[in-house]
């Protein structure tokens, strides 16, 4: 970008992001689609505000670098070591398996073998930015699929180096390769830099950060954080290694340091904005002219490579024993093309292995696959995952023998377990149902009798003995399922009393509307206990804190119950909540004042008895 247009550029990028992202969020499409759409909109194919997205792509790549640094920060060396098998084993399977498959199909379709090889390797890469971005957005980083995606992404980062080194060789594939000497030197340099980063990170970084933090200048610490990442990236690039990989390494080395949290908070906003910029740049770089010129070929490439990669990933996910419901995300995130693909194709075009039009065709295919990924995820959320969820549960046999216990507990998670344990402790054997195969297996290992059973299904509830049960505990954490089950039970088993867990007030209202009366908000009592602790810490007497909490509870419960009929009238709810709060505050304030007065007042009898606390000790 030109220097003069810096301001205009910022204006365009920021405005596009600020408009498009909330809109995409509002449409439940996720922020990444918003960024991509913003990019298409302002790019050469859209309104042409920006005509050369390449520079921006380079600049914004730093967002990916920062992201990997932050990912590294979350991963202590010990955990990284334990991931070595998925990284090198499964990562290689993904990359080389997909590449081999695509190469084979390419050659079989009569494409030149060099082009096939470049295309296969480039398309086998997956977008780390979108992958990890989606995992973070959905909070899946800690799951099996999250760790698997991370492992594969890391291997791709590592593998990108030899692949990029290999490309120029393809151009002169006919002749014998000559670059050996330089290659060895390069390898030595690369190893040297990695050693320098590891040793430096171990020995120097922490004291340096301590010294900088000691200066008590927050912005300098931020600057130092950025410098650290920039320096690592620069060092890696100088020897031709992946910047992101270097940043990741630096992050891992600092994962155990006391500055981990500070580094995270300092870099988070930069990462977010730069990643956004990166996605915008990707959106801009989709050359719709190429796509429109050969729509069928582009579509065939996109669909073809997505399917081939997905096939490999599907096999992997089975072999890796990723839980069924997590598989769609795993497959979709790794099936897409990635930003390394851009680099591969550009380098290959530069080296003359493939020609420019083919390169832009492949780049367009990758970019389109990245654009499709968030959409595919939305689709998977709607259709694929629910279907799988239904399927996987059936692996565990449904409840089949008729039960006749007086109590049924539906949902044996954190909430249902406590209910169940209290009942067991008192000699009651409830019939316990859950819909999570994992949960059931875990609970069975602990010796609980838990059946697979969906409480929304009439036939299963009948088998579970709902027609004989006196109490049915609805401890399901899914609000919709809970309401659905309550509706079904009220209709078909009117003799059973429902004792329900409510996730929140709106859930409580929905259950209340169905005629359920024994509803507990899951957080109310725990929070009140905490409030009691706070009062106690501030010097309130323990018994007084207890009384105040119980009275607050009664007031709150009465208020919520009173407002149940107006649950859809938000204005009314807000007004009533405000009024109720004010009422209680005034009442408590008044009592405090009266208590003070009473203390100041003299005794009330001639016989010198103490202040008339007879009836009031407990109330205060």
């Amino acid at each position: 970008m030109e220097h003069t247009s810096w301001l205009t550029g910022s204006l365009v990028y920021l405005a596009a992001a600020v408009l498009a992202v909330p809109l995409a969020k509002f449409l439940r499409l996720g922020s990444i689609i918003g960024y991509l759409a913003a990019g298409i909109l302002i790019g050469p194919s859209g309104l042409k505000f920006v005509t050369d997205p390449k520079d921006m792509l380079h600049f914004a790549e730093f967002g990916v670098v920062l992201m990997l640094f932050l990912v590294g920060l979350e991963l202590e060396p010990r955990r990284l070591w334990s991931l070595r098998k998925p990284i090198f084993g499964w990562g290689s399977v993904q990359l080389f398996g997909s590449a081999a498959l695509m190469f084979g199909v390419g050659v079989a379709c009569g494409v030149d073998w060099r082009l096939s090889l470049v295309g296969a390797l480039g398309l086998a890469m997956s977008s780390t930015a979108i992958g990890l971005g989606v995992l973070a957005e959905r909070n899946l980083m800690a799951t099996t699929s999250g760790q698997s995606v991370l492992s594969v992404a890391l291997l791709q980062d590592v593998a990108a180096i030899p692949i990029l080194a290999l490309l120029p060789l393809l151009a002169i594939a006919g002749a014998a390769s000559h670059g050996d000497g330089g290659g060895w030197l390069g390898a030595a340099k690369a190893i040297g830099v990695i050693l320098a980063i590891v040793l430096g990170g171990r020995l120097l970084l922490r004291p340096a950060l301590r010294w900088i933090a000691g200066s008590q200048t927050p912005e300098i610490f931020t600057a130092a954080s950025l410098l650290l990442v920039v320096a690592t990236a620069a060092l890696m690039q100088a020897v031709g290694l992946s910047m992101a990989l270097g940043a990741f390494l630096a992050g891992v080395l600092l994962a155990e340091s006391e500055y981990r949290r500070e580094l995270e908070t300092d870099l988070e906003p930069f990462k977010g904005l730069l990643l956004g910029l990166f996605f915008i740049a990707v959106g801009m770089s989709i050359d719709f002219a190429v796509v429109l010129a050969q729509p069928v070929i582009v579509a065939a490439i996109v669909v073809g490579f997505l399917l081939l990669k997905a096939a490999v990933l599907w096999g992997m996910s089975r072999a890796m024993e990723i839980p069924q419901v997590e598989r769609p995300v795993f497959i979709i995130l790794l099936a897409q093309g990635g930003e390394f693909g851009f680099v591969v194709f550009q380098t290959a075009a530069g080296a003359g292995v493939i020609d420019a039009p083919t390169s832009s065709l492949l780049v367009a295919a990758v970019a389109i696959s990245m654009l499709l990924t968030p959409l595919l995820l939305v689709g998977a959320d709607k259709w694929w995952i629910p279907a799988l969820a239904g399927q996987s549960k059936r692996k565990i046999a449904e409840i089949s023998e008729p039960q006749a216990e007086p109590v049924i507990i539906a949902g044996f998670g954190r909430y249902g377990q406590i209910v169940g344990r209290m009942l067991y402790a008192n000699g009651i054997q409830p019939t316990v149902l859950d819909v999570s195969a994992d949960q059931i297996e875990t609970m069975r290992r602990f010796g609980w009798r838990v059946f697979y059973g969906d409480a929304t299904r009439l036939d299963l509830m009948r088998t579970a003995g709902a027609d004989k049960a006196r109490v049915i505990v609805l401890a399901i954490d899914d609000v919709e399922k809970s309401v659905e089950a309550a509706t079904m039970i009220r209709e078909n088993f009117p003799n059973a009393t429902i004792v329900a867990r409510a996730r929140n007030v709106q859930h409580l209202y929905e259950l209340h509307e169905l005629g359920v009366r024994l509803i507990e908000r899951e957080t109310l009592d725990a929070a009140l206990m905490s409030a009691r602790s706070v009062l106690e810490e501030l010097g309130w007497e323990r018994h007084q804190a207890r009384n105040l909490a119980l009275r607050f509870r009664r007031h709150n419960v009465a208020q919520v119950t009173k407002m149940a009929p107006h649950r859809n009238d938000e204005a009314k709810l807000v007004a009533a909540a405000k009024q109720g709060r004010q009422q209680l505050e005034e009442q408590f304030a008044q009592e405090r004042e009266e208590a003070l007065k009473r203390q100041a007042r003299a005794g009330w009898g001639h016989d010198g008895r103490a202040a008339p606390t007879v009836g009031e000790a407990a109330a205060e």
Partner: protein
Amino acid sequence: MDSPPPAATAADILVITAHPQMEHSRVNRRLMHSAARVTGIGANHTVLVRDLYALYPDYLIDVAEEQALLASARLVVWQHPIHWYSMPPLMKLWVDEVLAFGWAYGPGGDALRGKDLWLVATTGGPEESYRPDSYNRYFFDAFLPPYEQTAALCGMRFLPPLLLHGAHKVDEAEVAAHETVFAQRIASYPDWPELEHLSDCIACEVPDDARPAEAPEDAPPATARRSETEAA
């Protein structure tokens, strides 16, 4: 417990029942149920039974509601087993909180004045144990003054208590007879033979010097005001 029970409707006879282990009760449970049935058989007054341990398992007494019910009753019955020569703890808490200063006693505290208080109690020990030569060392009357004085301070007439000693051991016939007496008394109140000889109000006149030396500076009694707002 997220739905509070509907407010009770006031009655002429208010039976306050307190038994911490109603599941083990032989006598008090029957008395409570028979009192509740009196309402149904068309007596000329209404009866309301308040089972305190069922209403307030968490010991959080709704003072406002209790006071409102007391205010409209003519006869208040305290029905409970004697525990350690006194009332069960929730009953005592009820007394502490509901019979509040400025409402039941003290300045402006005349909400209960002129009403009757009737103690209906059971003891585990047999009657013979309440003798100077037995393990309870006192006649049972010796444990009544706190009750009598509570009534007196509130300006209430303390009716002759109805007692059943040795509640664990007495035979079924005796329990049934006791229950009948209790139910008849509830049904026929205030036409009880023993009340004819009872002075109008033994200790209704609380001497002036038992009242506070000076009225508090601001007029409305504290607890009554609290009660009004608390109802929300």
